[in-house]
């Protein structure tokens, strides 16, 4: 009944803080063309398009309709999915289901954002949820700071531990030609950077970015025929509960632990630390790189810092995290989750070039947003066993 689905091509823009040379449709078109080129296909081969962004960041209503000049969806089916920061991962999960349903064979998935076009403070006012506001915007990060503080109080972590994650991701970003910020930093530089919301320093958080990402998903028959080694989608899971500021279990990301458990159960993963080869984590600030890998079951509660300090999540370590440089190097929000998915796919396909982790059998990509929401995808180099 259900069909196996694989990613057969990816494309992204060279992400930048401002892209004054192109409008939104043109930015989208760059990513679409690269994905088509990567998959060795033309738009004629695409059966349907899934697109996502954050409406109030660009101020354009019915983006699915408006974007067709760039997405190539003229006289094709196009559908828009939007779930906040998780959008990029949500649309990849959407592409998966739409292909797995058997209704379409090749689907183009596009995430994009031109954060430079709106005023952050203004955009914040469009979401009344204060938790969400603080999660997504670098300018108002007290929700994340509360999480970090709670975690530090519970487990005795320090801001040096957070800084270590930032040093890792910013170093990784130097291997990624598409990343926006590609400059190595030292621990001292992170700790000396301006304090935004204690314990979060400027160099602990993500920037604002203009960028787009596109992936092409195909059903089993076409994926096997594809010129590329396909990246098979093994399972997806997500949780989007509604939380007021006081509802969250600060210091733990419940949506991540629940999604992870479901993901592992679906495919029989018992020891994720050993069975997963690389993770592209939607990590909007450095401390999440400690906390959320615990919620993901990679290490036990409170063990994140030690694991990270041991170099295990660095390139060449036991389980490299964010070889792309992650979200703190680049954050075009509507695309961010899809970039995680595309980067994980590139790892599985062996196309990650300077940031390639050797011999990737399983990768995980995640999305984060809303009010403490998580979306997750498990990728694999072999066909899934269902």
């Amino acid at each position: 009944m259900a069909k196996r689905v694989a990613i057969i091509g990816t494309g992204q823009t060279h992400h930048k803080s401002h892209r004054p040379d192109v409008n939104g449709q043109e930015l989208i078109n760059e990513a679409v063309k690269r994905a088509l080129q990567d998959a060795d296909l033309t738009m004629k081969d695409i059966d349907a398009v899934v697109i996502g962004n954050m409406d109030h960041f660009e101020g354009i209503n019915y983006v699915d309709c408006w974007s067709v000049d760039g997405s190539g969806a003229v006289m094709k089916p196009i559908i828009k999915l939007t779930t906040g920061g998780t959008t990029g991962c949500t649309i990849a999960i959407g592409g998966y289901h739409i292909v797995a349903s058997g209704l379409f064979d090749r689907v183009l998935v596009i995430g994009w954002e031109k954060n430079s076009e709106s005023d952050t403070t203004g955009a914040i006012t469009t979401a009344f949820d204060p938790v969400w506001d603080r999660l997504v915007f670098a300018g108002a990060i007290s929700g994340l700071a509360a999480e970090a503080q709670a975690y530090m109080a519970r487990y005795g972590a320090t801001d040096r531990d957070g800084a270590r994650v930032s040093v890792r991701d910013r170093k990784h970003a130097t291997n990624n030609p598409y990343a926006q910020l590609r400059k190595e930093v030292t621990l001292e530089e992170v700790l000396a950077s301006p304090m935004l919301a204690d314990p979060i320093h400027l160099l602990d958080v993500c920037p604002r970015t203009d960028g787009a990402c596109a992936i092409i998903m195909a059903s089993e028959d076409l994926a096997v025929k594809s010129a590329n080694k396909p990246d098979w989608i093994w399972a997806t899971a997500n949780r989007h509960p509604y939380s007021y500021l006081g509802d969250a279990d600060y210091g733990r990301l419940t949506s991540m632990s629940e999604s992870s458990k479901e993901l592992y159960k679906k495919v029989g993963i018992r020891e994720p630390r050993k069975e997963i080869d690389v993770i592209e984590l939607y990590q909007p600030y450095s401390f999440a790189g400690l906390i959320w890998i615990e919620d993901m079951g990679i290490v036990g509660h409170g063990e994140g810092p030690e694991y990270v300090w041991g170099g295990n999540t660095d390139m060449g370590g036991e389980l490299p995290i964010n070889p792309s440089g992650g979200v703190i190097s680049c954050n075009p929000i509507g695309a961010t989750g899809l970039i995680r998915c595309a980067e994980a796919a590139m790892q599985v396909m062996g196309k990650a070039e300077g940031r390639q982790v050797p011999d990737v059998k399983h990768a995980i990509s995640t999305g984060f947003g809303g009010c403490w929401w998580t979306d997750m995808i498990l990728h694999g180099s072999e066909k899934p066993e269902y």
Partner: protein
Amino acid sequence: MKNTFEGIEPMVYESKISVPYSWWSGDTAGEFLRSLRDDKKLLGRRCGDCARVYIPPRKACPLCFAEMEWAEVSDTGTLLTYTVVLRRLASLPKDPPVIYGLIRLDGADTAILHMIGDIDPAKVKIGMKVRARFSQARKGSITDIEYFAPLSQ
């Protein structure tokens, strides 16, 4: 179900979204707007593959994804359809009646949206020829064309 609000005026939270945007026009629309402002010329783009001339101009052909080149189109064209707005809709930039039309400029394969002026609303007809009337003070926006007026006038 019990009506909790019986006899009570429900509370309403009055607010508005006020988000300033600055959309980058990009190189393509930027050139169109510059030409409109400085030269009072309307620039379309011709697809290298299908040869269709698009206005408003696109960077790449939406149908072929092919590169395009600039192609000047006329400031005169044909009215394909129109409406006379009589109610003061919130989006209207001025008091009604406002006539909107879809105009296919000579030399273009697609039509542009704009206003129709200098005419009794009752006399507007599909198929009539119109010419762009440029604003005196142009600042690089689509309203640098004030409206399209009947060609005969």
